[in-house]
């Protein structure tokens, strides 16, 4: 760790924004770039699913608990990955309180590049407006104190939703040129929604684009997405946090070249190995395991994973992905608690830290 003189106390928002830029922080921020909504939190603020995915005040109430109840440094109003797909015309299954809404991917809406159409009133769709209004409500509530992170889906993920996973992946093998055309057309939805969230008041955006090692190779990421993700950095003027679930170490070097502010990575990847690969070119966010640790284990197990991340030089700590809706609050509040206690016995760190 690089030792520096203590950094004066920061607000949550300052801490998150500094860590995303790999600047000095008073302590490592704890953030939730995907979702920390749980059934318990829904009950606490009367904002159950699916209502909280479609009603701005409910969405804002539930998102706020990420800071007010759990003590995270950021709030995230987009709990799922379906708002854009709903606005693009995908068939939806909104589900109940105890499950996430999902796109009916086996009923795809597009087959060829010419089918792709981002409606002229895309940003007026109720499921888009809901997010934008929730962001405004959160900004009003938290002012400059808490980082508000929005979410705009990347074109690869939109491809799964709009073309169906198997047809989209087969097309990528059979006709890479056609696939690039599709990505070029779908990226308009990513950029439009991202810019609208900036106007509404977000500080940063998560950009999920699930070119995961569980489905495609690292070379696929390079071929289809690396340059496009660099374009997003130029076109969307807030720090971008790329999120890809699953195994990703084979593409982290490419991701680190995109200019993204951060990469939100999964617990299938070792924090220390990941930190070595990205080598301070990008911040890392993660990677507390969801199903085995946060969902099924106890606070001491959560603490052990937090410490493993801190000692590996991970710049922003948080769950690896959207947490299971039945996760106990005591496991979630342990994350910021463990971070604070770790820092009380360790010198302030000045990212980049792990190369020293």
């Amino acid at each position, binding site marked *: 760790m690089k030792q520096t003189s203590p950094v004066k106390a920061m607000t949550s928002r300052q801490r998150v924004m500094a860590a995303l830029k790999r600047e000095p922080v008073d302590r490592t921020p704890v953030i939730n770039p995907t979702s920390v909504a749980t059934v318990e939190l829904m009950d606490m603020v009367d904002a159950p699913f699916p209502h909280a995915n479609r009603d701005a005040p409910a969405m804002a109430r539930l998102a706020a608990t990420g800071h007010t109840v759990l003590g995270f440094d950021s709030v995230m109003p987009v709990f799922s990955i379906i708002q854009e797909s709903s606005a693009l015309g995908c068939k939806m*299954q909104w*589900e109940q309180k*105890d*499950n*996430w809404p*999902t*796109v*009916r*991917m*086996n009923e795809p809406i597009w087959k060829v590049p010419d089918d792709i159409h981002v409606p002229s009133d895309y940003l007026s769709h109720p499921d888009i407006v809901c997010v934008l209004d929730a962001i405004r409500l959160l900004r009003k509530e938290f002012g400059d104190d808490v980082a508000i992170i929005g979410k705009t889906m990347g074109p690869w993920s939109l491809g799964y939703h709009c073309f169906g*996973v*198997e047809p989209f*992946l*087969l097309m*990528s*093998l*059979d006709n890479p040129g056609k696939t690039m055309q599709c990505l070029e057309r779908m990226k308009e939805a990513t950029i439009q929604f991202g810019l609208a969230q900036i106007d509404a008041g977000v500080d940063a955006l998560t950009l999920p684009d699930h070119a995961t*090692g*569980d*489905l*495609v*190779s690292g070379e*696929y990421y390079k071929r289809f997405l690396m340059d496009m993700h660099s374009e997003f950095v130029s076109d969307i003027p807030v720090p971008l946090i790329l999120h890809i679930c*699953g*195994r990703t170490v084979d593409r982290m070097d490419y991701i680190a070249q995109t200019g993204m502010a951060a990469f939100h990575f999964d617990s299938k990847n070792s924090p220390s190995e990941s930190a070595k690969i990205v080598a301070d070119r990008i911040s890392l966010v993660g990677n507390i395991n*969801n*199903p*085995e640790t946060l*969902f*099924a284990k106890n606070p001491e197990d959560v603490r052990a994973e937090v410490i493993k991340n801190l000692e590996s030089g991970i710049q922003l700590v948080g769950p690896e992905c959207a*947490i*299971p*809706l*039945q996760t106990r609050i005591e496991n979630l509040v342990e994350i910021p608690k463990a971070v604070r206690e770790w820092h009380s016995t360790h010198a302030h760190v000045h990212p980049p830290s792990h190369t020293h």
Partner: protein
Amino acid sequence: MAELSDIANEFIREEIEEYLERPEEIERNIELFARIRPAMQEIAAALIEGENDVVDRLTQQALADGTEALEIMDDGLIAGMGIVGIKFREAMIFVPEVLACARAMKAGMHYIEPILSDAGVEPIAKVLMGTVKGDLHDIGKNLCIMMLRGSGFEVVDLGVDTSDDDFIDAIEEHQPSILGMSALLTTTMPNMGKAIEAFIDADVRDDVMVMVGGAPVTQEFADDMGADGYGKDALACVELAKRLAGVQN
């Protein structure tokens, strides 16, 4: 004991040399392909390459030449799919490539299946597969189905969002020996356990061996819910299904 040089097809020799790492798998595949006729090796090679048009043409040609449908399936299609499964497990190929291989398998089976059915040839076992209630993700389940079919199982696909009643009705209708459940979401993973409880209540639990899988599922979770087995990926699913069906690898 056969040698690599006993395999006629150069592509198959290279595949074994380049991609297979486990000694027992190398040995098993050398033994297998060394006894397979060159024409069937050619079908296996085309399948591994994901060339559905070539598999289609070679399968028709082999049938026209008088080759038994069972030989084409076992020595061409299933043998080829075996290599595909290993490459996928070892992350040497990924889902798009597996999908292309499965498409090639399907091209060949299009001609083979009706012949085997007419001849009354039995599959290894019948498997019911479904993604559980509330979950619309099916890529993992579909990969398992492709590999199971590519290994000689008959599979009935119940699709996504499968309710306990749908599973129970399908058990009664199809009388499978194995039932596979998949979930991608942590929210739907517990529905596997609920389904098993429903099978007990409906008095069909003892009729099937239950296997489970999916990204958030673990062996521990599978044990807790009372499943008979857990597979971490598509190839593990096939190995598990063979074990549950009492078949030696």
